């Protein structure tokens, strides 16, 4: 009886310890890279299926600043902030083909948020949220071009993320 009394706290302690063990950085890097590559591939497929004329240039980089374009990667915090914005943007797109990309992005965001928690990084609140909401409100009705622009910028960010995986080690 005394044995079991002692055993349970030990087991619970071990479990909590296991839960607290952070994902090894290299494993996280692999996961992030795989997920980012998957997202890039899906975006390419999605945008190719639209069969838009290759002559079209939808949205200069300086236009629509609410959707991050060429945003620098300065650590986990900036990555999570940017991905959160993208996730919010994708949520405004209609259900269907983008749903899977949204799920992939959500998974990736989950990895990184867990990593931030284990590293005790401070989670930033997305800036200009009100402005983003208004932007989504005004533009979501044009879901094809809006999605094309957002996914293209997300693809660029994913490509940048893949070559900056070392930033996952810092907040």
């Amino acid at each position, binding site marked *: 009886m005394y044995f079991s009394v002692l055993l349970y706290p030990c087991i619970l302690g071990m479990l909590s310890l296991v839960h607290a063990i952070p994902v090894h950085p290299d494993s996280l890097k692999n996961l992030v890279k795989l997920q980012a590559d998957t997202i890039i591939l899906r975006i390419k497929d999605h945008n190719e299926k639209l069969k838009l004329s290759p002559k*079209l240039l*939808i949205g*200069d980089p300086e*236009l629509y600043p609410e959707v991050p374009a060429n945003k620098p990667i300065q650590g986990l915090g900036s990555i999570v902030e940017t991905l959160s914005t993208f996730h919010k943007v994708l949520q405004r797109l209609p*259900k269907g083909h983008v749903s899977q990309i949204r799920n992939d992005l959500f998974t990736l965001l989950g990895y990184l948020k867990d990593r931030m928690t284990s590293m005790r990084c401070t989670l930033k609140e997305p800036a200009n949220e*009100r*402005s983003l909401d208004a932007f989504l409100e005004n533009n979501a009705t044009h879901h094809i*071009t809006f999605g094309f622009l957002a996914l293209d910028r997300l693809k660029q960010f994913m490509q940048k993320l893949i070559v900056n995986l070392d930033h996952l080690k810092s907040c």
Partner: protein
Amino acid sequence: MHFTYLHLDYFFHHLTLQHNPRVPGLAALSPSDGRGGIYEDLKWKALLCCELPFAQTLDDGLSEHPPVGQCQLLNATKPESSRNCLDILCWLEGEQTNLICNAKSHRAAAAASLFAVRPQLVVQMNVLSDEANHAAQCAGEDTAMCSISLHGNDATVSLNISISLNGSTALSPKMQVSTHHLRRPEPPVNLHYNVTTEGEVIFRWSDAQPNSDAINFEIRYASNSSLQQWEVVKVKGRSWVSLNELSSGIRYMVQVRCQSHINYWSEWSQPFYFTLGVSYIPAEIFTTPGSEVTIYAVFHNRSWSASKAVWMLNGQVKIPESQYRVINEQVSAVTVTVDEPGFDTLMCCHQWGERFKCIIAYAKIYTEGMFNADFTCQSKNSEVDTMSCEWNKSAWAQVRLLYRQYTSMCETISEMEGSEEAEENMECPSGAGDHRECTLRNLSLFSCYKIWLEVEGGRGKVRSFPVYVAPIDYVKPSPPSVLEATTLPNKILSVSWSRPRLPVYDMQYELRFVALREMANTQWKVIGPLLEPQAEIQLKESCIQFKVEVRCRRLNGSGYWSDWSMSYTSVVYNSKAPEMGPDFWRVIEEHPVRSVTNVTLIIKQPVLAGDPYSCVEGLVIEHRASGRAVWSNETTLAQFHSFQWRKEAHTVTVMSRNALGISTQNRNMTLSHQPKRRCVRSFSAVANSSCVYLSWSLLSDHPVPQSFVIEWLDLKKDPEQDVSLTERLQWVRVQSASRDLSLCRRFYGSEEFTLYPVFVDGEGEPVRYTATRGDPAAYILLLIIAFLSVVLFVTLLMSQNQMRKLMWKDVPNPNKCSWAKGMDFRQINTIENLFPHSEGLTACPLLLVSESICEVEIIEKTHPVTLEHEQDNEVPIYKSGNKTATDSALLADSSEPLSLEASTAAATPETSGQSSVTYSTVLRSDQPSLLRKQQESLSSSSDEGNFSANNSEISGSFPGGLWDLENHVCSDSANPRHSSSYNSVEEFSETSDQDYEASESTGVAKDLYYLEVNEEEEEEDEEEIEETQSEQENNEIVMKVDARPLLEGKKSTAVDSSVSHSIPLYLPQFRTECINPP
């Protein structure tokens, strides 16, 4: 002590709430129109003063009819301290849902200072609301405060106050408070903007309350990044304003507020964010098929010009510019006609080089009617019946899939159409979106379903044609299961399976199978349709395992094939264990680094068709080391098996096995490092075209081996292509009694054969022999070369003879020419000297150089060549200016022929009229020499001109035709110029004079080997020529040396080579014409 008890009783009798009783005139009220009070700072204020009768003491008691006083509302700014006055203040509190009124006596404020003993005032307030029957009553001494709930609505509140003092009472006049004036106006709502077709941006808004009295408005805007710098625009009397100073691409925040008639400003409205880019007018349009639609696009970007607008249909097709219209610098319009029902989009972009800059926005066109969605459905009958439908649609449209279930058959639905409108439509669970498929669950397979699409946002007017689907017709069943297959000894593959339980209709099946050992290049053999869940397949061989799969579909009616079932590997039926183990050989490889010896067994596949009742399913390899250690491995029917050998005596036995046991007659191999005994005396190999014959003999005093093994490497398999030694090694076992072996297969001739005598206790010393054999291909090549050489030699001989005949046939005897009589020709030995272009004559030297065919003698004349010389029967020679040379001297130098033409080409007008005559003698060795006279007219401008002009026409097709001109020239002896012969090079050069000049340095003139001298056109008959010659003996002699047969084979190449400076097509001729002496 006189104690005065002052009882002041304020009594609010009827404070009435009237919900929204405002009259239209109320809007004109001034702040002081508060029925006795004033509205100020969101409060209602009033001063109430009352005249009360003399007060009685408390000791006297209250009479039954207390005296009544009078109250008056005064200007709040001038209170009268002599009276009993009250300050009344009302305001809204909380979420502006409660009205608070406070009455406070002036006495209460002054009591502390004026009286040592504070007088008592009793205040009572009643607040009543007659609509909601709300009443609030409150009382107090000196001050009283009442609150009444307004339930969020504006109301006019009636206020009555009664004051009691020492039994005297005074009633206030009726007071009204409008709660509407106690609050700020609501800010305007629904702020938005429109763009006109002229490009004007107009902001509009609405009042928050329908009866708002707001007149004045202010609208402010700022860019999102600089919210401190507001631009404010005042608007009066209207709820819209045009803002034309906005820039494109900037995110603005805009707000509006309003002012009430009592000058209260509302709060700023909710911010409205916007970015101007391209606006479409209208942004959405409904049309009918075939109707024209005009859409305007406004470029808010001032750097974009409407003249550079590009309209795109559905982001894919550029609309022709003929359909555009420029409204002004910023506005473009397009007119399109959409023929098909459905959904389309229009984007107006700006030309930017080869590309088009666009923004997110686009115009939407809904064309009424029904479009074809091209549905494809597939159902599944399982625990939960499902049906998945796919469709095609515009990528730009968001759609909803709607369906409706009918309990009748699809064929009868059209009759019922229209009667079931009341029934509810159901929607795909995934809802609206850009889906292209939907899975419906919990269906009834035997019902009929009507399925169609609706374009989201299309107000339900744009739909697809509906399809009526009975899911039972589109079932894709589950694949069959419980598959069993057996390879029987009678060469039959017996297969059975279980059909899926659902759907219950009759099924047909397809079966496919492939031998397991052929899986690398899987070629399935398909059998079907089968009506029973079993099949027997006749095989060519027994003992073979197969991989088998089955699928099914509905027997009668439509439906889909199921997926192929899981693969099943057939079982080979055996009635007994195999009798014999396989034969095998070994490859020993010593690892140089790890000092490990690897042994790979090469196992011959057991004969599968040997005994169908004892098929071999695998191998057992038994190892027996010197220390009596025994172990074994079980493998499949592998061709190779490797193990490490520790260089001790090691015996390997390979046994065949199946489910019933292992073979009993097996072959052993003993590996040993003992010195190997030598027993082979000789070993040789003889190879012929396809076989190698091997023979050997043994030493007489040695024991006879158990068997022999002959091994060699297959040279066909390239070791560079990662083919291992074990795969390249070929071997054959020979019985011990044999002493020779004939191997017939593809050999390369350089194989090294090794003969291993195999004893019971190990191998004897091997003997090697390399079977060298000439490459048959090389032999064949040599034979071909030899044959070709013979053919060439014979051809050359024949050609030479032919040449001789032609030459001597065509060349007349120059001695017969009148001009040649008495002439002294010096002979030259070879024709090579005559034709000094041996480098250019690749074919001729073989024929001509070897034999002295003719001799040419050139007589030098020191005088300039003139026509008079010819006329004087002098022998002119070729001359360039004053310089003369013998032909032999010229020809001896390979460059001299060039000088011949060079002088010709250099014939300038200054030299025009000069001529040169060359005499030559062509000799036959067996005949007296024939004289040849050649007279050339060099640089005759008229002649050159004629020929340079004519050459292009004549050359190639009819070279002999040139002589037509000269024939009658020859007869026309009176014209000495015409009697001159033409420079041979010029006559046959394809090039113009300029070309000729360019080419002369590259050796065109070396190609002088075609000799032709024509007398008449008829050349074929030698006798005729001779007759003609005799007839014209005194007049003219034409000598012809025709080597044309030699050239004909080169004609085709010579055409091209005229450019590349090889042998030209037309070859110069030496010709001699007689010149009649005057």
